């Protein structure tokens, strides 16, 4: 069996030995280097563009918006984002011109010879400025999208409560910071355009290319090259870069490469949406939630892009994994003159998770109830109903993860030890423990998967091996490996006899984007079904071939009654000789009874949720207010772990990314531009900052996932920031309602708290 085993990753050796070729490793005959000329202004009108007449422009290819054959937009949700600005600049770093030349030096030289004059307009740079509507930059009121989730009677619920507790929480931008920056090569072909590059979603790029040049499915070809991380940052933005490279390539009729350097990548591409989240919760004295009103405002940036989908996930997760009969969640995303915010691991959930978990901490504090107890009282369990009215029918690991995290971390013992330590005198280094509890819907929200109808397939090669056909990308998370494991076990052949087709739109079907913790649960399921069908077909064939009706396929051999009749490869070759190539393509269908209503925003938001609980232990230096995370213990229910080591890797990596979100990562803006666009001043945790981590995988199998698997990609991003903030609260008494908990912020809160308590 391959499932559940830590088999070697399919592309591991290649990566480890340096044989793997990333986009910037590829150089083609006659290739030009492209560069994007961007606006330094956040908002304005282009008055003129002039090209230095002392410079020889003949070797330079220049494109502006007039070179776009069709309409000027990047095909996404609203099609409102232009590929190149014609006149109206809506955010800093917005692309205006594209230039290409034979060397990078020459491109840089040419870039310095272009002058763009603007008429400056007053930019809208924050959620507050957008909401006050002094400047209108989108629609009538700057609001991109609204959602309302309503359940029960909030007013009644408030009356039932003994206490009303309010909180306002702020979450910042966050940069994905994949190791490999964005990059694409576009190659004009006789029939159309081929694009290679670093990306998560080849069919998004494919759609954008088709639209740009009005190409057929076959004329546009998109190939994913080895990709050094994505984290959502390579979901939508690659379409923009691909179109830019393609425009230049089309004009020059030569291949064009565009690679962003780190500064350009940080400055210009998407970020996690910042937000302001308000909670108003009614609770009884014994800690039951009776009503919850939540208001979410996210900053979408200058264009709609994926914002409505992020907002939707934020709204659906806003109450957290808690029971409450009376709920009203209002969610808005607003426009600002900043680069569009977009997909980032967690997709709206980490933002609201920080808010709902800190609200739970606040409630516990006010009621004088132990925070763990408060979670136990209100947690969702199997059979319970969520804010959208979804009854949790299966695979609910909520209690298991909470228990596991508490036991493994010795949460209670730690709490007590800290109390004793505290009582024995004031130390300048204080320890604290904190807890978080969270959940994450796997797959697209609502009817997304039903509409998407993900496709994937399997073909049997001439050598008699199984080859997986899917556009789900390997971006470091292990897609290729787990797909092969699933096929090996479903089909009954060895892991080494399964291979993966290149992620090339001319060879693989559209499995949907590689996002939303959906690859294993949804696409993995489709592949499992394809494998099942292949197995049926080839078994039937073998049964006839050998006159053995009871024949079975196990570990790559056809057997009957304990006797080996032939190898899978032999039979497969025979099958091909007689019937032609054996190839099966399957399509996703939602499990029976999973229903969602887009109008009332209610129903089964996700076929299944993954569950997590996390305990963070910190030490705070009371003079410098540095927070060191000593240990994180996390238990996560992800359904069956197809590859436990890769799953643990996802959990540890995601948790560390969330440590950065909670503690250090902060973009500094000046007039709508990012000032700290370098790794030396945008601080992410390094391996040296990684706390000791203990990971417990809980496997509550999901009946409609491959071998019971759910999703693991995003869940780990949700829990660390609130767990750390809770631990800081435990250590210092400072209640943090805004992340990151930088030392300066903590010092200010601490001074404030001390002043308040002195006045009391």
């Amino acid at each position, binding site marked *: 069996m391959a499932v559940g085993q830590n088999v070697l990753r399919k592309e591991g050796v290649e990566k480890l030995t340096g044989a793997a070729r990333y986009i910037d490793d590829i150089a083609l005959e006659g290739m030009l280097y492209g560069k994007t000329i961007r606006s330094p202004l956040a908002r304005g009108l282009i008055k003129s563009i002039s090209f230095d007449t002392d410079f020889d422009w003949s070797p330079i290819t220049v494109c502006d918006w007039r070179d776009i054959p069709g309409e000027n937009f990047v095909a996404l949700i609203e099609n409102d984002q232009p590929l190149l600005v014609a006149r109206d600049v809506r955010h800093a770093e917005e692309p205006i011109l594209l230039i290409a030349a034979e060397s990078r030096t020459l491109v*840089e030289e040419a870039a310095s010879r272009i002058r763009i004059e603007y008429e400056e307009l007053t930019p809208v740079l924050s959620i507050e400025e957008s909401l006050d509507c002094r400047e209108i930059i989108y629609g009538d009121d700057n609001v991109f999208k609204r959602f309302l989730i309503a359940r029960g009677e909030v007013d009644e619920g408030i009356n039932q409560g003994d206490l009303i507790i309010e909180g306002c929480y702020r979450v910042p931008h966050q940069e994905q910071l994949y190791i490999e920056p964005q990059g694409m090569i576009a190659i004009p072909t006789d029939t159309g355009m081929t694009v290679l590059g670093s990306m998560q979603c080849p069919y998004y790029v494919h759609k954008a290319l088709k639209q740009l040049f009005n190409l057929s499915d076959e004329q546009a070809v998109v190939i994913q090259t080895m990709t050094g991380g994505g984290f959502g940052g390579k979901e939508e933005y690659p379409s923009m870069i691909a179109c830019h490279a393609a425009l230049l390539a089309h004009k020059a009729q030569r291949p064009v490469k565009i690679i962003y*350097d780190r500064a350009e990548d940080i400055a210009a591409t998407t970020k996690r949406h910042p937000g302001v989240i308000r909670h108003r919760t009614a609770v009884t004295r014994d800690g039951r939630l009776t009503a919850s009103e939540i208001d979410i405002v996210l900053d979408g940036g200058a264009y709609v892009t994926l914002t409505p989908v992020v907002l939707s996930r934020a709204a659906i997760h806003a109450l957290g994994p808690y029971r409450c009969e009376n709920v009203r969640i209002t969610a808005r995303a607003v426009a600002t003159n900043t680069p569009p915010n977009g997909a980032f691991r967690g997709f709206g959930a980490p933002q609201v998770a920080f808010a709902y978990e800190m609200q739970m901490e606040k409630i516990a504090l006010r009621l004088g109830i132990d925070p763990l107890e408060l979670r136990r009282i209100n947690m969702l369990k199997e059979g319970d109903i969520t804010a959208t009215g979804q009854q949790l029918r299966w695979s609910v690991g909520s209690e298991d993860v909470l228990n596991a995290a508490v036991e493994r971390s010795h949460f209670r013992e730690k709490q007590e030890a800290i109390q004793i330590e505290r009582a024995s005198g004031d130390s300048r280094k204080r320890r604290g423990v904190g807890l978080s509890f969270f959940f994450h819907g796997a797959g697209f929200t609502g009817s997304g998967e039903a509409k998407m109808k993900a496709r994937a397939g399997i073909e049997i090669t001439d050598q008699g091996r199984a080859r997986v056909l899917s556009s789900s990308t390997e971006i470091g998370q292990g897609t290729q490996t787990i797909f092969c494991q699933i096929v090996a076990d479903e089909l009954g052949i060895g892991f080494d006899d399964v291979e993966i087709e290149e992620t090339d739109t001319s060879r693989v079907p559209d499995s949907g984007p590689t996002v939303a913790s959906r690859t294993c649960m949804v696409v993995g399921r489709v592949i499992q079904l394809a494998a099942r069908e292949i197995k049926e077909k080839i078994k039937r064939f073998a049964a006839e071939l050998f006159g053995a009706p009871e024949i079975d396929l196990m570990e790559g051999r056809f057997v009957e009654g304990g006797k080996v009749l032939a190898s899978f490869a032999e039979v497969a070759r025979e099958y091909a000789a007689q019937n032609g190539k054996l190839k099966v393509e399957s399509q996703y269908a939602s499990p029976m009874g999973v229903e969602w209503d887009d109008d009332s925003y209610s129903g089964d938001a996700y076929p299944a949720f993954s569950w997590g609980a996390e305990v963070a232990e910190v030490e705070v230096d009371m003079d410098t207010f*540095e927070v060191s995370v000593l240990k994180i213990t996390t238990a996560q229910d992800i359904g069956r772990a197809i590859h436990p080591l890769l799953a643990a890797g996802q959990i540890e990596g995601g948790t560390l990314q969330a440590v950065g979100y909670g503690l250090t990562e902060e973009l500094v803006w000046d007039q709508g531009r990012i*000032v700290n666009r370098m790794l*030396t*001043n945008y*601080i992410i945790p390094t391996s040296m*900052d990684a706390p000791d981590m203990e990971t417990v995988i809980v496997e509550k199998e999901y009946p409609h996932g491959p071998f019971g698997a759910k999703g693991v990609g995003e869940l780990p991003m949700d829990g660390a920031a609130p767990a750390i903030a809770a631990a800081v609260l435990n250590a210092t008494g400072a209640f943090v309602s805004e992340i990151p908990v930088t*030392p300066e912020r903590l*010092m200010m809160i601490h001074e404030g708290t001390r002043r308040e308590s002195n006045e009391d």
Partner: protein
Amino acid sequence: MRGFEYASPTTKEQAVSLLGSSDDDAMALAGGTDLLSLMKDDIVAPRRLVNLKDVAELRGIRLLPDGSLRIGALVTVQELLDNAIVKRGYASLIHAADGITSPQIRAMGTVGGDLCQRPRCWYYRAGFGLLAKDKDGAALVPEGDNRYHAILGNTGPAYFVNPSSLAPALIALGAKLHIFGSGGQVEMNLENFFAAPTSANEKEYRLKPNEIVTEIIVPSAGGWKNATYEVRQKESLDWPLAAASVALKMSGKTIESARVVLGHVAPVPWRSGEAQAYLAGKTISEQVAETAGTLAVARASAMSHNGYKIQLARVAVKRAIMKAAQGGQR
């Protein structure tokens, strides 16, 4: 990055003759850890790079007859950390070098380069110039995002902080610098090497475009307790937010004289006369160290976003003194 000519001389005389009359003409290249990133960001664009790494006489650490230590400008941070003499007598220098956490930077970055590296001020690094002015000539830092900027010596026009961690430690140890130029060799106190620029065409240290640093001379630290304490954002590879290096000449349990130098808080490594005067004649205690810290920042003034650094600097001084008292153990 723009194209440039590359020269690799083998003597300091050749090196100096290959340098020019401005940074646009030529710049000296040691480990390149700072210079190359400045070139990539188009902050400097020398037409020629003069590689110093083949100039053998700039290498090596050795004891001089008078007991002082000679550190060649090309000595790498890692070589410094590995050196037995440095480890034995100069704890404060080890602490400072140890703070440069990335193994790659330690392997390539040199002591001379550390002293001559340019400020990390993000306005400077984004192309607004060392004095960070907008196109109308207004200073950007006082009203802008100055969370990492100066809290001492910040009356303008320079608001950045000196980025070198080794400089405060070396100054506290009384180091001198040898500079070689067309007129031959000059010696100066390292402290005097640094000066806040008053106009856009000055640097934050006194080195002509056709001069190089050849070596650093550190007097024997016998009888001096010394230590450095840094406060940084987590264990990240970034520069400290504030640091203090102290050297205390002891006579029994009493401090005979003290040198206290703060790093990353002012456009120059900041010598605190107040703390030094106070410490002379005192016996080290938690309380004494605390007061010294408070005195060291007595004249500090916060800009809009960096008040927090005052607290950090105070704590750094206190902890550096306590660390020195404990024999400078890490």
